[in-house]
């Protein structure tokens, strides 16, 4: 993506960055008001808050970086502010990994004891605040090297802290180590289910969208039908599917209704965006294509598809993020997705088990989102790209 560094939105660049400042304040509030880490005697008893100093030097680096980010958001201007904010955001998330690892190793020196350190509310708040600073920074034009570098810093730091060993003593990872087989099974099922549903939704939804753009009656029926499905709560939809499936002699629980339900949910953004993508193609371009001797299918593949594809992929992205979330719910009909961990954790009141289900889902959604956004940019012709913001 070609970005012009001198073409900066004055609203973002020449005033104080409120989003970035808020993010930095959230990090500071998390550090000051809530525990970053808590000690639990075993899996289910409530944690005892530990002082911030338990995280060692990394915890103080976190606080320092939050202050720098706050100052940058309020005082600095232009591209240097964005770079500084991004560096602080990445640094905060990285230092948090070491603070947690250090605290875990420090507070529970004996790996064999059932006592464990869990990630405290302050740490979650700090991650959320750092993410806000990150978001604020990336609103400004920035080279790809900066973005990739920041992401690499975060990834390397967490991996290194894990390799060093402290992180493994965090409660969430102790849950993982006792459940790792089931965990990976569930991750696999989750991804397979989402992948299958997305694939089906694309195979069904894209042709439906094309048809909707061509035939008025199909458009009315299809768009309202996929819109209606979307309004049905996911658990209710799973329940509603039992009867028709039973009528066909098919099981009302298990992977089949799960895939059907996820596919139905994924249809709306894909059908709608395919239709919108085709509808926004300039009629004169189609007329010119036909007038110069393209067949109807050549107009579709050479003119309409390249112009509509960015929106179609945007629809797939929305569908992917949504189905990753909804796939948790199908645990209720006996499909082993990450939702199983959450439901089990709720049953045992084991917070860290819930997190073991929820955090990977968030990561999946974030990664799917980033990958499909990148794909969308890749397929967008420079001729129709939005100019740098």
């Amino acid at each position, binding site marked *: 993506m070609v970005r012009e560094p001198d073409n900066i939105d004055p609203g973002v660049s020449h005033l104080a960055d409120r989003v970035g400042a808020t993010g930095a304040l959230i990090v500071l509030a998390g550090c000051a008001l809530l525990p970053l880490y808590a000690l639990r005697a075993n899996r289910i008893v409530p944690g005892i808050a530990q002082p911030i100093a338990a995280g060692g030097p990394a915890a103080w680096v976190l606080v320092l970086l939050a202050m720098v980010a706050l100052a940058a958001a309020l005082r600095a201007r232009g591209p240097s502010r964005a770079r500084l904010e991004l560096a602080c955001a990445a640094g905060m998330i990285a230092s948090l990994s070491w603070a947690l690892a250090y605290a875990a190793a420090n507070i529970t020196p004996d790996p064999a004891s059932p006592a464990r350190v869990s990630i405290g509310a302050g740490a979650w708040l700090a991650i959320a605040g750092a993410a806000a600073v990150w978001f604020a920074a990336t609103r400004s034009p920035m080279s790809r090297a900066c973005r990739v570098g920041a992401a690499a810093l975060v990834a390397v730091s967490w991996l290194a802290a894990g390799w060093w060993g402290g992180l493994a003593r965090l409660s969430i990872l102790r849950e993982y180590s006792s459940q790792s087989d089931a965990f990976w099974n569930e991750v696999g099922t989750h991804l397979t289910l989402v992948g299958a549903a997305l694939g089906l939704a694309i195979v069904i939804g894209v042709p439906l969208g094309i048809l909707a753009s061509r035939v008025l009656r199909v458009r009315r029926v299809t768009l309202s039908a996929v819109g209606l499905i979307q309004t049905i709560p996911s658990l209710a939809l799973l329940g509603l599917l039992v009867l028709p499936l039973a009528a066909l002699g098919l099981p009302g629980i298990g992977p089949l209704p799960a895939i059907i339900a996820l596919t139905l949910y994924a249809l709306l953004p894909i059908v709608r965006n395919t239709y919108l993508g085709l509808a926004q193609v*300039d009629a004169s371009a189609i*007329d*010119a294509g036909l*007038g*110069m*001797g393209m067949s109807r299918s050549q107009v579709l593949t*050479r003119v309409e598809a390249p112009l509509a594809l960015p929106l179609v992929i945007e629809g797939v992205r929305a569908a992917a993020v949504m189905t990753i979330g909804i796939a948790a719910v199908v645990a209720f009909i006996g499909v082993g997705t990450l939702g199983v961990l959450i439901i089990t954790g709720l049953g045992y009141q084991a917070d860290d088990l819930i997190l073991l289900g929820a955090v990977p889902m968030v990561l999946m959604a974030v990664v799917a989102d980033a990958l499909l956004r990148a794909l969308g940019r890749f397929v967008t012709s420079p*001729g129709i790209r939005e100019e740098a913001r």
Partner: protein
Amino acid sequence: MIKLENVTKRYGDKLVVDGLSLEVAEGEVCVLIGPSGCGKTTTLRMINRLVEPTSGRITVGDRDVRSAAPEELRRGLGYAIQSVGLFPHLTVAANIMTVPRLLGWERSRMRARVDELLTLVGLAPDAYATKYPRHLSGGEAQRVGVARALAADPPVLLMDEPFGAVDPLNRERLQGEFARIQRDLRKTVVFVTHDVDEAIRLADRIAVMKDGRLRQYDTPERLLDHPADKFVHDFMGADRALKRLGRVRVDTVMNTAVPRIDRSGGGAALTSPASCAVERFAYVVDAAGVMEGWSDCREPESSESPGSGVTLIDWREATVRPDDSLKEALSHMLELGFRRIAVTDDSGHLLGDVSLAEVEAALTGGDSHVATSPAGGLDR
């Protein structure tokens, strides 16, 4: 070349084109004109079968248009439209290569053709080939649209108000360029417009339509002088003398033997055969022959101060091009308050001039000044 026989198009109860018969000779520009809703665009679109006639027969080069698949037919008929319809996701070069690509040309041949066409329509290939349509001005986009229509060198061009979406100044320039290109290429052109001046300037024959029927099909001169009925008379407008000037190209009547002074030659060195004493003034050019202004010879030029009595002008503002019509030249003269105006090429080189005398001669000479040959009215 193109023949419409008793062609009718009906949408439900609505008769859009009613028993239209029309013949366009090879190498001629036929302009379809009429008030909106007269069926001119429908007629054009029936030729390349974007619209199928309800009845009647259309032949292009003696072949019935229905004898082949519409796609195949259309690849042999250049097509340019008012909204241009450039593909926004493709570069200018890729847009121009649309039809050659459909015909399966080799890459090197397409490349060469793109350069050739961009040069033809007056856009520098190096600067424009890799641009995207959104970076083009309206006039540039229209030029690319024309280049794209010409890409596979079709014998026939169908143009639906191809210059309709640009400002009047650019439109006149584009018309001049189109006339120049058409002089070289001699395509058979069917051109739809609602602009009478454009029709008179570009057409060999004009088909005036109303309510789906052909009211008169004739040369612009005959339409101006002998309108078939009151509708045609009114439609062609009142200022027929001026409109006639729109038919006369500047280079067909201009004086090429104009007095000129080469300023770089040192002051008042006369290089023209015409004497300054007779003309009382001379054009001033630089060493390369680029127009710089004029010198009033009545003010004696002293050797101490060469350049006194010289009026310097910007040739872009105060001259006309050889492709311009006499109407444009007259309008410039009136605007600037001159009795004559210099003619320069696109880089400002002085070619000659036209004066009110030429305008007058064109008006009184009637058909004899029609701009069909550079000889300027000697061919009829």
